[in-house]
């Protein structure tokens, strides 16, 4: 089983940023911590579990972006991926899912993967498009928000359960090769084992320069970025911890929400 996991690097949830003067892009502070998109961690874990049950299997990992993106490719290898690929795009700012998906599909087309996994969405942009677009570029079937998958080796198919909500799932069987976008909560992602960390340090990451992969297109652009208008006027309670607690109690009692 030849598996590709597509991972994205995102700034940490609490990263500080400012809007650039043109109102079209963000500048993250210099000390920003970047890490692997949480949804992709679940996709990687799912790939590693498949490799443990189907022998032989290989798990490749790919990411698109600037030089710093190498860190999460390395991280994925420390967690257990066999080979790492970095599609280098020295362009900061908005990256369209079209562009990312086009680049990944161009890379994957030559590799004959049986299964491609990625996270259901990214924590920062939240488009939830890249995986499905990769599938369409490669002309293979896809299922999104996957909560369970079972390979049916003899039939060369995969049984998949998609999440509709916390109590409802949609089951579907796809022919291989197929692409799944993995929903968070499907598993508990593992931490890197020391032996894998040591091995990953010695391994090369293959860098791919996009010219080799065909044109880059972006079909939508940012007109402007503003702060989210406040839906409600938030009154911040001040004072010591105890004073804040006392104030909240008074407010809730005043609204008859607390007896």
């Amino acid at each position, binding site marked *: 089983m030849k598996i590709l996991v597509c991972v994205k690097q995102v700034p940490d949830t609490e990263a500080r*940023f400012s*809007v650039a003067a043109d109102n079209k892009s*963000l500048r993250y502070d210099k000390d920003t911590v970047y890490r692997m998109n949480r949804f992709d961690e679940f996709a990687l874990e799912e790939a590693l579990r498949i490799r443990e049950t189907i022998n032989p299997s290989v798990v490749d990992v790919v990411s698109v972006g600037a030089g710093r993106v190498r860190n999460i490719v390395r991280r994925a290898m420390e967690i257990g991926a066999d080979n790492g690929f970095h599609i280098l795009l020295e362009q900061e700012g908005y990256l369209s899912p*079209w562009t990312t998906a086009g680049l990944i599909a161009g890379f994957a087309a030559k590799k004959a993967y049986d299964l491609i996994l990625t996270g259901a969405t990214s*924590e*920062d942009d*939240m488009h*939830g*498009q*890249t995986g*499905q*677009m990769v599938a*369409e570029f490669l002309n*293979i*079937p*896809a*299922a999104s*928000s996957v909560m369970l998958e079972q390979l049916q080796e003899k039939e060369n198919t995969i*049984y998949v*359960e998609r999440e*509709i*909500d*916390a*109590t*409802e*799932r*949609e*089951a*579907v*069987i796809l*022919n291989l090769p197929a692409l799944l976008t993995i929903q968070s*909560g499907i598993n*508990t992602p593992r931490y890197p084992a020391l032996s894998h960390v040591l091995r990953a340090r010695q391994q090369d990451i293959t860098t791919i320069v996009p010219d080799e992969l065909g044109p880059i297109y972006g*079909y*939508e652009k*940012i*007109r*402007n*970025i503003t*702060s*989210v*208008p*406040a*839906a*409600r*006027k*938030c*009154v*911040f*309670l001040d004072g010591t*911890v105890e004073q*804040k*607690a*006392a104030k*909240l*109690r008074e407010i809730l009692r005043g*609204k008859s*929400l*607390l*007896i």
Partner: protein
Amino acid sequence: MRTKILIVAEHSPDKIMPLTWEMIACAKEIERQIQAQVAVAVLGKDVLPQAGWLAADAGIDAIAVTGDSLERYTAEAYISVLYELACELRPDLIIIPHSPRGYDYAPQVAVKLNAACISGAAELDFYDGKIGFCRQGFHGKMAITMESSRPVTVITILPGAFRYDGRRAERNGTVTIRKTQVMLKATRSVGTIYAEEQNANLRDAETIIAAGKGIEKIENVELLNELAHVFPKSAIAGSRAACDQGWIAQSLQIGLTGKTVAPKLYIACGISGALQHIAGMKDSQTIVAVNRDPAAAFFQHADFGVVEDISTFIPALITEFRKKA
């Protein structure tokens, strides 16, 4: 020239999902600003009744697309059928719900049509005869207006973002039936699987204490339980991140991929405030947010904010609440 808009309905055998009306409200908002022509497509094996209801109630032209491959939802059939339909009708804008089904097929439809794809649109902006689609990003902290650079654009719209006024149209739209010969090649639908409902008390709760990733450890769930006991008719719930950690049962998840609630009081503990969660609780009467990050997006949606750590503030709150009046 008129902008042609095609809405893709979301429906069940016996009803039109509320999201469909919200998409119609979105299309009507566009119609008020620019010259537009709106149609709605209903895909299924036997969807003539649904098409009829939409044409009568919304007063827009409805197209019932029927075929064996549409008996149950599959992304493959939806993608092929919508591609076929779009090649014929040539819409400039295709509106799809940002629902677990909608976002399953919308990106592929865009790729096939060489169209732009903008997901989770929650608001429209009009300028120079163009439409801007506003969505949230950067962990729910920023509002981003996107525009299409392509002649054809596919958008998915966020549940709850557009409100249908419920007014019945003065005249009926037309109903057209189309048969599709599209066959499934690589997909077979198996059906729907239901998990046991365990959230009865969530629906009836007047106070909901919700946990996010910011509660940091499972031990703190006990604190929230203790806090919940102070309130009559209360329940514990969680954000997707808290449920994924196993701290809170998945059936108690609030948000786009969970339940929608509107209690009298909602206390959000350590929840960042991404719109996926907000969409499930924004209609609560009073909202209190507790988060140690003063820039957390949740404060934009709260009536009262407390910038503190959960493990220090919640015990203080419990002590305070237990004091005699």
